[in-house]
């Protein structure tokens, strides 16, 4: 077991980073905010933390915190600007934001290293501190989805017109979700650059949106656990599909399509349905009674 852990340490690290990134997208969507800005903020966090430590000599922790704070501020401004948008319009505007951040990362050469990206960022995150970060983020989500807060989020997601009638401040809640999503995205990006020492514009564009949505669709958005499960599967997918050789990226794309069409609520949803099915089918006596009724 321990040898497996050391052999796969970098995969586990990527999976944990992706889990936080998955949380970032999920937090927004579970509050009914159809935002994909998490990918852009991942870049903000990664480039922010990377450039501050590499080019300005900051210590890792303040650099990470500054990047997260900056993402929070940008997130709030973006949320205020996009406040009126809903559904596809919001999705489109946030994808546009992600693409713009990628363009900025390519062209602002002094700070971002241009198309080659930043490399040689000092390693500052260990697996232990990464696990702590994931645990804190998960605890935050569990706390957020507990009791009244959970019901508030459900109301926001299911019916935004009913929510104000129930005394929910929709605008504030949506801004909150957006800012939290931005900060989680930046945390993921910052941790990633401090683990793997590099970040390139190629990593933070459309590809990142694809991985993020794969996490969401494979894990499911019905629970925060979905992002964690999804992140581990996405990370191990290349190994699991190693047999397919050069067709692997093609199959990965098809898996997304297949999963979203047939398992819309993800693995967590499938597990829940399976559990419910088991519970309903175990007691035999009840089925006999129901059969005797004409």
């Amino acid at each position, binding site marked *: 077991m321990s040898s497996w852990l050391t052999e796969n340490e970098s995969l586990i690290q990527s999976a944990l980073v992706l889990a936080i990134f998955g949380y970032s997208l999920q937090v927004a969507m579970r509050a009914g905010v159809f935002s994909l800005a998490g990918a852009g903020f991942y870049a903000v966090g990664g480039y922010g933390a990377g450039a501050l430590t590499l080019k300005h000599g900051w210590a890792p922790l303040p650099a990470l915190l500054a990047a997260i704070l900056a993402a929070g501020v940008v997130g709030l401004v973006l949320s205020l600007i*996009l406040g009126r948008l809903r559904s*596809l319009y919001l999705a489109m505007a946030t994808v*546009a934001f992600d*693409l713009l951040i990628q363009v900025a990362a390519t*062209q602002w050469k002094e700070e971002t290293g241009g198309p080659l990206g930043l490399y040689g960022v000092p390693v500052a995150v260990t697996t232990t501190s990464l696990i702590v970060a994931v645990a804190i983020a998960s605890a935050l989500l569990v706390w957020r989805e507990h009791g009244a807060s959970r019901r508030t989020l459900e109301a926001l997601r299911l019916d935004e017109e009913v929510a104000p009638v129930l005394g929910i401040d929709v605008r504030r809640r949506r801004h909150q979700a957006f800012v939290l999503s931005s900060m989680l995205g930046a945390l993921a990006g910052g941790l990633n650059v401090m683990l793997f020492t590099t970040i390139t514009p190629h990593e933070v564009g459309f590809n990142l949106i694809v991985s993020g949505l794969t996490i969401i669709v494979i894990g499911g958005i019905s629970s925060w656990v979905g992002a964690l499960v999804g992140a581990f599967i996405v990370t191990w997918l290349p190994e699991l599909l190693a047999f397919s050789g050069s067709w692997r990226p093609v199959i990965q794309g*098809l898996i*997304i399509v297949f999963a979203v*069409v047939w398992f819309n609520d993800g693995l967590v949803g499938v597990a829940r349905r399976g559990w419910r099915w088991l519970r309903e089918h175990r007691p035999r006596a009840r089925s006999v009674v129901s059969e005797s009724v004409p």
Partner: protein
Amino acid sequence: MAQQLLNAITLGSIYMLFAIGLSLSWGVLDILNLAHGAILMFGALAVYLLAKHIGGVPFAILLPVAMVLCGLVAVLLERIAFRPIRRRVVDVHARELAMLIASVGAGATIVAIAERSTNNQLASIGPEVFNVTSTTIFGLHTTNISLIIIVLAVVLTGALAAFVKYTRYGRALRALAVDPYMCGLMGISADRMTALTMFVSGAIAGGAGVLLAIEQGGFEANMGESLMLKAFAVIILGGVGSIAGAAFGAFLLAIVETAMVVYVDGSLQNGVAFVLIFLILIVRPQGIFARRGWQRA
């Protein structure tokens, strides 16, 4: 000045061809098709592969063939992903999210196929397919491919606008944008109209991809990505589902971008689209030509 304007018109024609399909599928079908960029690239890929494996086919045949192939890819996407989702997912928001994710997956698949067949490198459509020559028209320097782009953009857009406005199918399409359920009661096959919309949007994007690849001297598997941002700006400027709006937005964006490159700084070109999107969203979120739900498409 006139020279720059001509360049801007060529660029705007590409934007227009690309954005129309995206706008149409959004306006009529409520699908934000993020695979649209990949379908554009697929047009270039189809011509590249056809020319490589079956030489000697004239461009006048290759272009329509590639367009039909791209249309079929879009229809395939509708059949294997969008239609099942439409049937299975009842909640509107969940359905939009599912379709968006499906289109992302499909786009990634198409890009992966392209990367595989071009070995991840810049592939060029050679002069044996289309020989780019420079010409002079009204004293302005241009290339034959630019002229073809402009003419095709005008013809295809005009034809599509006329089709939507004046034909029975076009009327059915507009009805579909308003109320798909009611369409069923009026004897309009929503499935068939949806497939038609996807075909047209895919075919036009594919044509744009072929022309763009020739104009730029080559294409990469992810050539569609950067165009998505431009198309978003075009759609927001012109209003979702509006063909005239898309034309207006495309040329406005191209002119502002060209002016930026000429008078300010070339590196700012890609930021223009984003600034325009945000300005419009703040000032006039319904687009410059305000349209209500029943006017979309």
